[in-house]
């Protein structure tokens, strides 16, 4: 799985590459994906084979690591419908594949989940679960838990009702579907549902916290990460922003959007829920990664869930109950004034309330969040969480919008600007126990790549200029960097090759929401292009070009 383990730590025990020798890293081999769109996927290494999923058209490659140059073993082309590109909100990305029981599972942009034989590349089953004509796409990496392939849909900018489905890994039939808006029985809320806070208690809140019928087109999609705790037998997944962005059109708390569910993996039954951003005002999707740790929290051992959230807070939750133990901003935040730990409620800043016909300036963080989908990594050696993130602010103006199925449903003019200090990105090491940063590195562009940390005390991440960097896990000192062919927005991994040596791999190829100006050739003269992101990325076209290349490094 892309996140290394069910706890999503992205920590590798490999230590051959360490702080002392990482400066000697050199290219072992490269491979062109043949697709010049945003490469957000993590390569997957199982045994002697590396598997890669490309952005649309979602080609899967298997590379043989046991031979020099890692030649292709097979490739599989699912040929998704080209029209799907027109309903994918923010570039046509794919975040990777999952492996279980000799099979590769992955999603296509046009709404299919496909199982391949990992040895031969032959398709075993193909489940069509998303409908592009209502704006549904799938970009997330699936997760396989107890024989179920967990998949969620994208489309929060198209008025798509969010869901998570469990498909049987054997034949692909739908075992359960949990919607993230609507009546309790469709959200799979039953007698076992015990949310910690009063604001999440009540009958059919997924209906009553919306204007009539609005929950049917209310978003709450699930296109990010899922973690799994085998001991508690719970999966954890976030829910995306409510639709449309213009909050005047959906008075109420808009359950169960911009929050997090704990569910029982066999049936999907909800155990608890917590809402990061009730009645979200700023497109703060709640779908980021959840890092599951067993740690001493203020003197007591606790099972916690750590979430660097889009609204700017680093949450530490008790993952058995959903209680918020800590919520501290890990960067500049003025859209809210903190989290009330008694009620669990985000305290919105009244000066930054958005609405129809009103321009509100300098809202931090932006719609893309202090951190978007780009996953962080946790090292048990240092106790630090390594967070790749953004430093951006924005102006917003709510506008009228009509719902037409299969077209955008946003209703907000947005233009983004660099955040305080002018650096648009940062890479922050957060001391979870101390609730404060240990160190933070400034980057010119948003850090839209994931991170990986190793027992050799080295952290890897990439920049949108194309630098692939290794920094010290303890101090953040830059130890090594390599300029790849295009901007990096992918997920670095490290693995032990068939020769017993440690390798580091990353896909280079700019795109995603932040890089859409390059991968989609957008015009920077329009401040609202790419939902306002282009305004903050005007110079990216001068810094990099589109690409799609795998880089693999090793020591000489």
């Amino acid at each position, binding site marked *: 799985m892309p996140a290394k383990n069910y706890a999503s730590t992205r920590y590798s025990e490999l230590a051959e590459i360490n702080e002392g020798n990482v400066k000697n890293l050199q290219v072992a081999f490269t491979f062109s994906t043949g697709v010049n769109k945003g490469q957000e996927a993590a390569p997957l290494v199982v045994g002697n084979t590396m598997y890669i999923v490309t952005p649309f058209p979602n080609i899967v490659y298997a590379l043989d690591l046991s031979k020099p140059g890692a030649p292709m073993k097979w490739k599989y082309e699912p040929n998704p419908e*080209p*029209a*799907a*590109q*027109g*309903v*994918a*909100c*923010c570039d046509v990305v794919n975040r990777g594949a999952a492996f279980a029981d000799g099979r590769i599972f992955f999603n296509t942009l046009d709404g299919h989940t496909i199982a391949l034989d990992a040895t031969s590349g032959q398709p075993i089953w193909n489940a069509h679960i998303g409908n592009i004509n209502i704006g549904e796409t799938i970009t997330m990496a699936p997760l396989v838990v107890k024989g179920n392939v967990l998949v969620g849909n994208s489309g929060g*900018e198209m008025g798509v009702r969010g869901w998570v489905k469990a498909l049987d890994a054997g034949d692909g039939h739908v075992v359960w579907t949990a919607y993230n808006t609507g009546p309790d029985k469709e959200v799979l809320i039953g007698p076992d549902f015990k949310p910690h806070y009063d604001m999440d208690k009540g009958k059919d809140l997924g209906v009553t916290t919306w204007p009539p019928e609005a929950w049917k087109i209310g978003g709450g999609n699930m296109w990010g990460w899922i973690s799994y705790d085998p001991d508690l037998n719970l999966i954890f997944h976030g829910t995306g922003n409510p639709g449309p962005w213009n909050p005047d059109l959906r008075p109420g708390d808009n359950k169960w959007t911009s929050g997090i569910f704990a569910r029982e993996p066999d049936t999907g039954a909800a155990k608890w829920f917590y809402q990061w951003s009730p009645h979200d005002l700023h497109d703060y999707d709640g779908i980021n990664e959840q890092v599951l740790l067993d740690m001493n929290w203020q003197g007591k051992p606790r099972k916690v869930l750590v979430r660097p959230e889009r609204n700017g807070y680093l949450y530490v939750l008790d993952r058995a109950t959903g209680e918020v133990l800590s919520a501290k901003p890990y960067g500049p935040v003025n859209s809210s004034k903190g989290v009330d730990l008694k009620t669990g409620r985000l305290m919105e800043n009244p000066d930054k309330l958005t609405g129809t016909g009103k*321009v509100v300036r300098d809202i931090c963080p932006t719609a893309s969040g202090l951190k978007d989908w780009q996953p962080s990594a946790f090292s048990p050696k240092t106790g630090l969480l390594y967070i790749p993130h953004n430093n951006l602010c924005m*102006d917003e*103006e709510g*506008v*009228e*919008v*009509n719902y*037409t199925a*299969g*077209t*955008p*449903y*946003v209703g907000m*003019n947005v*233009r983004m600007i660099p955040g305080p200090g002018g650096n648009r990105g940062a890479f922050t090491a957060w001391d979870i126990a101390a609730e404060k940063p240990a160190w933070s590195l400034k980057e010119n562009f948003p850090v839209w790549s994931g991170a990986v940390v190793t027992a050799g005390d080295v952290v890897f991440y990439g920049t949108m200029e194309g630098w692939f960097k290794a920094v010290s896990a303890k101090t953040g000192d830059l130890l090594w960097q390599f300029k790849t062919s295009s901007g990096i927005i992918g997920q670095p991994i490290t693995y032990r090759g068939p020769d017993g040596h440690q390798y580091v791999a990353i896909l280079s190829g700019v795109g995603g929401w932040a890089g*859409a100006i390059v991968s*989609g*050739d*957008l*015009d*920077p*003269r*329009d*401040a*609202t*292009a*790419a*939902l306002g992101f*282009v305004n903050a990325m005007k110079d990216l076209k001068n810094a990099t070009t589109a690409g799609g290349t795998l880089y693999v490094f090793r020591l000489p």
Partner: protein
Amino acid sequence: MRPVVALLLFASMALAACQREERDTRPQSALGSGEQPTPVTTLEPGGQRPSPTDNKAASFEANAFHLSEGKRLFGWFNCSGCHANGGGGMGPALMDEKWIYGSSMESIHATIRDGRPNGMPSFRDKIPDDQIWELAAFVRSLSGNAPSSAAPSRNDDMMVHPSENRMPDAATLGKSP
């Protein structure tokens, strides 16, 4: 009598000078006109043949009323959801000099009506034909392809780019004459 004649003469001259733009406020609502074939390429074996033109193209193209209606509809039909205010997003930019499927009124009309294979939806039977022509005229104005006397002026909304009547012709932008 002379002053009266002079006054009449003046009045008739003034009236003649004031050529009021025709404002067709009750556009044809019928669906699906403009069925002429519109090639999306200039590569035509045996030599280029004249493309069929639609007489609606000229009547909508330089008309201030239709352009402003096109601007309003651009938001109402969520064109702006994908193409932003011309800079693009899910869909390509419309204010630059690049035209994937042709820059003529007829081509843009056909693109909106029939869709295109890489993501542009077909709005056939969803948008009345005359409104598609209004949208096509507005789309051309985003790249400076409309007379500045007719193109929409500045927005009431957040200023996100120069108004359409101040848009430079994208085809010559940044190139020496």
